[in-house]
């Protein structure tokens, strides 16, 4: 497959990352970066119990998570996004969905590859919660929103899936592709007061 047909990031056309000068040496209060590649699959109603159990085990996950908390595997997370609806988010940039799709088709109906529909942004650093408090309506305090907590929630007026990743101050946001640029600009501006570093994935000059 020629290079040109590599899926293009929704943020690919931003000329500048927009944040403060991003040398890794700089003590950034918050870092905002695009997580490129990886797969997102939307799963519908679970099928027969053995098929679901087998699929979950094959993904290396403990159980099918209920609303509010994700199920974390190694480089994979299963996020509940509605009644009998999940998003499977895989970190491996070379995975776009078909392999995982084949694995899941016996267990869920339907299984839809939605990797192109979402843009994933990671926000971390000591001020990540302060930054998110400017746009999120839900309480992100660790007592209320611990590692593994996840929500479908409005953020800066956009529909997002938001979860707390492993580590103290890491949050991840999925936003619809068409809104990715709007959200990025919003984050860059909001991060400024915390000495934010904003990194577009895979762009020369801005270490990812």
């Amino acid at each position, binding site marked *: *497959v*020629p290079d*040109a*047909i*590599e*899926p*293009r*990031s*929704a943020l*690919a*056309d931003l000329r500048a990352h927009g944040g403060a000068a991003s040398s890794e040496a700089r003590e950034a209060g918050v870092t905002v970066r695009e997580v490129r590649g990886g797969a997102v699959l*939307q799963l*519908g*109603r679970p099928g027969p119990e053995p098929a679901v159990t087998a699929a979950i085990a094959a993904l290396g996950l403990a159980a099918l998570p209920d609303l509010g908390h994700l199920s974390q595997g190694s480089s994979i997370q299963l996020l509940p996004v509605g009644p009998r609806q999940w998003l499977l988010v895989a970190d491996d940039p070379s995975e776009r969905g078909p392999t995982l799709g084949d694995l899941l088709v016996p267990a869920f*109906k*339907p299984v*839809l*590859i*939605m*990797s*192109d*529909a*979402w843009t994933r942004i990671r926000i971390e650093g000591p001020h990540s919660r*302060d930054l998110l*408090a*400017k*746009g*999120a*309506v839900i*309480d992100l*305090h660790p*007592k*209320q929103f611990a590692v593994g907590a996840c929500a479908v929630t409005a953020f*800066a*007026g*956009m529909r997002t899936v938001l979860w707390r990743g492993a580590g103290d101050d890491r949050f991840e946001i999925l936003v*619809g*592709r*068409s*809104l*990715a*640029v*709007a*959200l990025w*600009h*919003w984050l860059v*501006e*909001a991060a*400024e*007061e915390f000495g934010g570093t904003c990194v577009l994935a895979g762009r020369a000059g801005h270490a990812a």
Partner: protein
Amino acid sequence: MNEQPFRNPSGGAIDRSRPLGFVFNGRGYSGYAGDTLASALLANGVSLVARSFKYHRPRGLFGLGAEEPNGLVEVGQGARREPNVKATQVELYDGLVAASQNCWPSVNFDVFAATGWFAPLLPAGFYYKTFMAPRGRWMFYERYIRRMAGIGHAPVLPDPDRYDYRQAHCDVLVVGGGPAGLAAALAAGRSGARVILADEASGFGGMLRNTRGTVGDQPAQAWIDSTVATLRALTETILLRRATAFGYYDHNQLGIVERVTDHRPGRAGEPRHRLWHVTAKRVVLATGAHERSLVFGNNDLPGVMLASAARGYANVHAVRAGQRAVVFTNNDSAYAAASDLRAAGVEVRALVDCRDQIGGAADLLHETGIEHITGWAVLEARGRKRVTAVTIGRFEPTADRAPPGRIIDCDLLCVSGGWNPTIHLHAQARGRPVFDEPLGAYVPGTPFQAECSAGAARGLLATRDCLIDGAKAGAAAAREAGFQASDEPGIDLPASHAITPPAAVWRIPPAIGPRAKRFVDLQNDVTDADIALAVREGYRSVEHVKRYTTLGMGTDQGKTSNAIGFAQVARALGAEMGTVGVTTYRPPYTPVSLGALAGSEGGAHFYPDRLTPMHAWHLAHGAIMVRAGAWLRPQCYPRAGENADDALRRETRNVRSAVGIADVSTLGKLELFGPDAVEFLERVYANRWRSLPVGRCRYGIMLREDGMVFDDGTTTRLGEQHFFMTTTTGQAPMVARRLTYCHQVLWPDLDLHIVRVVEQWAGMAIAGPRSREVLAELAAPLDVGGTALPYMGAMETTISGVTVRILRISYSGDLGYELHVLAGQGRWLWERLVDIGRAYGMMPYGTDAMSALRLEKGHVAGGEINGRTTADDLGLGRMLKSTGDYIGRRSLSRPGLAEPGRPQLVGLVPEGPALALPAAAMLVTPGERRYVGEITSANWSPTLQKPIGLALLAAGRSRHGERLIATAPMHGTEMPVIVQAPNFFDPEGERLRA
């Protein structure tokens, strides 16, 4: 000469090592870090700072903080000029520029002060009386009245500052950082609860800062500092200074505006204001109390000041608000004020107390030389632009007029009429304030939301009581939020001392002699006579008196005046004070900048734009973008020397003659899976779906429950149980919501799944006679000929390893295809098509050309699907299936929908040569000019080289060939038009099916 003649050489909480220069009314002054604009003006001996709202009377500073009714100034210049700012709340900074408002040419000489001479003509409600006749003249007078009563000027330039917004959640929110608030925050914070403590001032401590008191063995300020340090060490506690809780809303949500950089402008990066949207489990309102005034003659003269304010200026700012003072009170608190003023070097000539018997407070006057006059009252202040003396006399509350007893020279009159607990937030939260007879004030009643009041906010005036009460309230709030907390304050309490109850003094008889104005509400220039008049004229409710007299309105919201005003109403009605009630308290407590409310949602963030995967290409190729729903779409692609009209015509002609390409990624897209998907479609669409073979598309219409057309679009059967639906861009969210609702609520038994895939797929339309050649070259060796891919055919294929869905459908009326590809590959496919298309004369076209093309073809759009038209009205009646149920079917049997005179879709052309049909025009009959319909879409047809339009015309299908008049009276245009069938281009569809 001393630069700041009223500043003491030592004392106070100001930093004398940091002098600051500022300009007031064009003149330079100096102050110190730690000053407010008000204290710096007083230090410089500026006593006249404003003109009053209605009579333009000279006014001086009256209060110390949020309660200030007089000292409203404009601060800043140009785009940063802010009107109606209380000088008492402006922290001084170097280079500050401020000016008096509501005066011309200057605050010293204000020509509008002449209104004072006409005061008898301007009684309460004068607007409604004087300026109504002759009928209709109010509009004329209003301009001048509004100008005279103006309160500052809003800047006309765009706001250059940044504003920020922050969501915060906590267990306990403490509003007010005085003794009660600090104790509450400490008690709650120590329990481990998440606490937010907000105070409107630059520092914590509240009224404690203004005194020279002690807490335990420590001076007040030392205790404040150590308490704040303790709170700062609690990791779950947020301390907000310069942060006003201005509104209390449902679900225990409060708005707090934090003034981040107002006191140190010029910092880049930081916002000016930050709006905190706080959701609290429990709220402790430790909002303190405001001292109120007393009603006597000329009680608005500069030099008349609240005793607590004069005390605060002396203790905090080391400023003497005057040289020779008289203190006038009905309660104990002014004794400490008198003592502190004397200590600050003010000559306190007398303390006049309405009460006959005074307890321990009088001890403060021992050996001070201050004359103590009891049972007397100040009847009138004397002076023109400043108090020069006061007339006092025996206090006879029931007497009509009182004989003057003595005159005492002074330039400062400190008044204390008792204390009004600050119940604004409690009342905003739907608590019902009750009147406390011994205190002579309204106090919080039963809370409606999860809040409680503590300290002076519920009428406790001694520091010791406030500390104990605050700690209790904070601990209780923490416990209610699920934490273990002790009621023990853990604070070294000050000693208690007995307080003599205040006298309820609502009225002081006017002195015998010429009658001076006696103000109840200083900010709105409301006198006791105005209130008496309102009651005489029949107003009984305090809400009505408020509106008739303007008592307690404006930015002041009655902080110092409401209680006195209500008492005047009660007296005039002969009613008990407790029975007249209070007016409704509404946010904001003090003015909030609009910028703070808008936050960062201005400019580009006003509305998040949705961009298609090809957005950057459009920009790079000169597209003018237009909003379509939440999306930005190319409107047209003007070339050098072209305007938008030229571009529209070129793009349209090019589709008809060669081939064009358009971005249709914004169309709503849904995928439906499952054995019952087809049954679902049968129910939500009004036409038939079961017969649709795999690999074919069909145009469908959905109706609303009332039978009117809701939306249209095409749905493609990709598999036996798999459909791909597109909707219009504008209605996409509504359609998705409706289908989800239908499935989840109406027919949960149907076995199907609906997935919104608008973000997953990029869409592009290629249209025009040469579109097939472009497609063939792209898809080679795949056969996309008329037989393999007929009109309304669909195929899913792979091109260069990329999955592409090809639908042979057309909105333009020409041979055309829609291609859908994964969004990440949208830009690639688009550029590939443009590359291939170059040899076939391909040009991109925008929404303008799209509209022109569909109009030529007579396709309906938003103008026609307007919520009032049925499928039959639009000429789509034959699509409705005759058997089987669907949404809207039963409504179609309503008689009104079958009437012969229903509006029906027709086409229109001008009778003679014309450049344009009037858009949104009415259609009338030529003779009697009877209304028969309206134009719904009109445009120039580049193909037909004349204007064309669509219209909804009564019984239109039977009127083809008829001559009507299109008239748009609002635009003054009118022209004869000829009715015809609504398809102007290729009516037989030969191009479409080629």
